[in-house]
């Protein structure tokens, strides 16, 4: 082939490649607006009487068509399970599912928690959202509000069967403006993980039950040495500071989430921040709370940190990483507000962009089956099905304390603007702990900012 031909051929190839790619199959089918007739039952209040009216109305819905699966389909499932849990998921749970449903293949992808939200939003914006994710409970309202999620109570005819089987608290995190957008997968909270060896070295026999006792413990622990810390946490985000705020009797907003003024700057909330500042100033609290990361598990395992607030996944991690170190648990120390911790946990949610909604729904059903709930309990995931709790506690006796704490635990604000509120809360906490502002002053400044975020809906 002579040079000129080669050259022409090359141009043609480049142009063709571009054309082919430009005309290739679009990543997502176009959403269509369809008209649907539905029967609406509503309670109409007329002066003096309540009337239940049933009428037929036509509503417009945005629907992304789901092609019927022909042959095997693959669904993508993103999660932030830790390595131990991931192994259970990919080595046991998914193979069991694929055996039961040979036509469905599950592609599980681990995404680090810190990057999860950014990665997910990028994928949604780019039209390549996964079919399912295991979502932190605090992301569901935001995702539902932006229209990214499928309302499961509409998609799954058997939704109520699952709804009635799970604990109402975790279930409620899936509710947004009249619909359920997911089902809970697991629940958890943070309780006190205390270090027996350090307690004994400091001459303490019992874990603290109140915040005053906690302070007394810290004083003794500090006497063990400059590099010994009574407590450590990774930052001033909600997950870290809320147990203290609530146990002190404080809060972020009123119960209806309409205002923060008078709540986030109430004397009790201020007292909680001043308490944390005192811990830090006296050297009880590891400076890692100022950010930059602190290896809390490593510190606990090497007897440098005496107390953590941790979740039920820790025993499995310790078994893998620090098999010689034993973990002790106790309830969150109580203050004026009682012993109140923060509810965590994950929901499984489905995206509008999913091409295989039926197959994805099968996987949801499977993940909520008693068998899988118990399998995941083996690696420290507290089940959400009421009918398996007894068996789970038999497998993992320490779950009992978590169930106990969950009775009073509270959730972070189920509000679509929570990520922005938490960003402000974190910065404010940093300013207080660094001594740049007094707690009262900083929280007074924070209150109106949260107010406006609560209002813009």
């Amino acid at each position, binding site marked *: 082939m002579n*040079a000129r031909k080669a050259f022409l051929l090359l141009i043609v190839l480049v142009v063709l490649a571009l054309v082919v790619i430009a005309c290739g199959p679009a990543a997502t089918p176009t959403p269509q607006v369809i008209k649907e007739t539905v029967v609406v039952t509503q309670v109409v209040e007329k002066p003096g009487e309540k009337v239940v009216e049933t009428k037929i109305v036509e509503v417009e819905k945005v629907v992304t068509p789901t092609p019927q699966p022909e042959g095997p389909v693959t669904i993508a499932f993103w999660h932030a399970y830790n390595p131990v849990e991931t192994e259970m998921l990919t080595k046991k749970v998914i193979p069991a599912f694929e055996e039961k449903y040979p036509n469905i293949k599950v592609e599980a992808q681990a995404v680090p928690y810190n990057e999860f939200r950014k990665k997910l939003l990028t994928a949604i914006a780019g039209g390549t959202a996964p079919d399912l994710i295991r979502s932190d409970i605090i992301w569901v309202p935001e995702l539902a509000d932006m229209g990214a999620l499928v309302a499961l109570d509409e998609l799954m005819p058997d939704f109520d069967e699952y709804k009635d089987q799970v604990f109402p608290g975790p279930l409620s995190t899936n509710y947004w403006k009249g619909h359920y957008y997911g089902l809970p997968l697991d629940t958890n909270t943070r309780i006190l993980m205390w270090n027996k060896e350090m307690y004994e070295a400091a001459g303490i026999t019992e874990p603290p039950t109140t915040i005053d006792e906690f302070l007394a413990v810290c004083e003794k622990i500090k006497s063990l040495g400059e590099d010994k810390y009574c407590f450590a946490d990774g930052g001033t985000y909600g997950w870290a500071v809320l147990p203290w705020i609530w146990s002190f009797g404080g809060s972020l907003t009123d119960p209806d989430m309409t205002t923060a003024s008078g709540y986030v700057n109430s004397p009790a909330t201020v007292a909680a921040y001043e308490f944390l500042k005192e811990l830090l100033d006296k050297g009880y609290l590891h400076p890692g709370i100022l950010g930059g990361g602190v290896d809390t598990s490593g510190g606990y395992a090497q007897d440098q940190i005496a107390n953590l607030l941790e979740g039920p996944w820790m025993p499995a991690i310790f078994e893998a990483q620090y098999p010689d170190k034993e973990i002790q648990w106790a309830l969150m120390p109580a203050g004026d507000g009682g012993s109140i911790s923060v509810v965590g946990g994950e929901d499984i949610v489905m995206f509008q962009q999913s091409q295989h909604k039926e197959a994805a729904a099968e996987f949801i059903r499977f993940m909520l089956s008693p068998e899988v709930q118990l399998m995941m309990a083996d690696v420290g995931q507290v089940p959400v099905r009421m009918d398996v709790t007894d068996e789970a506690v038999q497998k993992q006796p320490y779950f009992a304390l978590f169930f106990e704490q969950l009775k009073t635990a509270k959730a972070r604000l189920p509000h679509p603007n929570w990520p922005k509120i938490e960003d402000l809360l974190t910065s404010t906490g940093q300013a207080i702990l660094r001594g740049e502002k007094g707690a009262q002053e900083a929280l007074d400044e924070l209150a109106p900012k949260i107010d406006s975020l609560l209002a813009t809906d």
Partner: protein
Amino acid sequence: MVLNKRQQFVEIVFLYLALGAGAVVMAIPLIYMVSTALKGQVYVFEIPPRFIPREPTLANFIEAWQSNNFSLYFRNSAVVAVTATLVSVLCSAMLAYAFARFQFPGKAPIFYMLLFTLMIPGLMLIIPQFLLAKTLGLRNSLSGLVFVYVAMTIPLNTFLLRGFFEQLPRELEEAVLIDGGGYGTIFFRIILPLSQPALATVSIFTFLFAWDEFTWALTAIDVEAKRTLPVAIATFHGAHLTQWGLVFAASLIAMIPIVLLYASLQRYFISGLTTGALKG
């Protein structure tokens, strides 16, 4: 100047000592990275830190390569970098040839447009490029990376190659035309073979750019199977925050091709840097 002999000797000794001290400071971070990669997890945070690991082990390298998919990411990076380099250098050479040898309407505006994009931040375009990739169905595909890398390297490559082509003698080309050959023959048989040093230089820098590029790959790809090395290393660090030995083992694996390239083609690295600069 006789008196200076002794002075000169002292001065030279001083120079070597100072340069040596500087070299140690420059090299320590990289040496420490190598030694950490050879350590087991228990020795990573040892005080005092050791530059020679107590029980050196290749376990980190093996674990990164085998159980953490780094062989796959390595292949993705290689495919992307090699393809982007070939396409970019060829397209740039053709553009440069047109600028160096032909007169045509729009020549100056197009050339200034190329120069102008050299000045704008590459990251500035990430939002529209993201939307474009979505429209063209290029997200989660390696070709999406290749296209953007080609587009981002074309301006500089064209600029450098045009400078080189302009200095080539024209007599040979005229001879080809008289013999009835075409411009394609000139380009492939004369220009390209004569420009091997310049082509090597721009190829190296394009490869380096595509091999190390992070932000676009982070944004364009969300599936694990299509990750390139820089993104994989950063994500790996996010998932194993304290397992530095593993992170650095993965990093060193990613550095191997670059170091080999540098070791074998050092003069092109240097000449590439200096041609742009010295012409001013």
